[in-house]
């Protein structure tokens, strides 16, 4: 299989949220995801990019192809150098919000995707990696 280049979308303001999710959807469709799964992926990207704008002001959404032993998928990485999340367990509970703009963000994103990883250091930034495997 030919290595696919990663796609990077800088997130600096709210119109970038739409750009990132549209690129994510297009990439998912290219990779053979169903239209329904592409919508789930686009929705997850929208929420992750929204968190960047709301909490860190700017950051990056990176889309990569991932290959498992007998399957292929897409990985979405949302990274920022923002304030970080002091209590990740709390942030993963439904209904939690500190910006007033969401509260379902991270647990919801986790439900939309197959795999979810988060690392965050207060004062250093947050990185969320989510993956979805093609059915």
């Amino acid at each position, binding site marked *: 299989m030919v290595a696919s280049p990663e796609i990077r979308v800088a997130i600096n303001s709210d119109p970038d949220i*739409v750009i990132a999710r549209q690129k994510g959807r297009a990439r998912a469709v290219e990779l053979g995801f169903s*239209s*329904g799964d592409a919508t789930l992926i686009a929705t997850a990207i929208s929420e992750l990019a929204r968190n960047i704008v709301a909490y860190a002001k700017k950051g990056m959404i990176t889309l990569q192809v991932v290959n498992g032993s007998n399957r292929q998928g897409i990985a979405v990485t949302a990274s920022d150098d923002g304030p970080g999340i002091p209590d990740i367990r709390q942030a993963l509970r439904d209904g939690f919000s500190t910006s007033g703009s969401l509260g379902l963000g991270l647990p*919801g994103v986790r439900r939309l995707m197959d795999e979810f990883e988060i690392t965050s250091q207060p004062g250093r930034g947050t990185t969320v990696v989510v993956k979805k495997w093609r059915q």
Partner: protein
Amino acid sequence: MEVPILKQGAFLIATFQAALSDADLNQLRMGLVQQVVKLRSRGVIVDVTAMDVMDSFASRTLREIAHMIRLRGAETVIVGIQPEVAFAMVQLGLTLEDVTTALDLEEGLAYLNEKFKNTH
């Protein structure tokens, strides 16, 4: 991208032409509420058929639009939520709470006509 607002009798129809940014959604909220006041509209239909993704912000803004318009004594109907978008909304844990929804523009208009048939 601005959302055109059309007047159809006592009702207003706002049709999304493409995916909307947060700023577009905020502008729609302001524009619709102003038009409802100015034109003394009884009902509003927001057609979101062209919306690619309904995330937390879009859902919250639509709820706010409907609640503001209800305070004016008018009714809002959201129409055209695509099945895949609805599926993603449920997975994400989003609801439109008590906001009325209908399959498409035709059913939305039928609902408003029935609701206001004796008042205009």
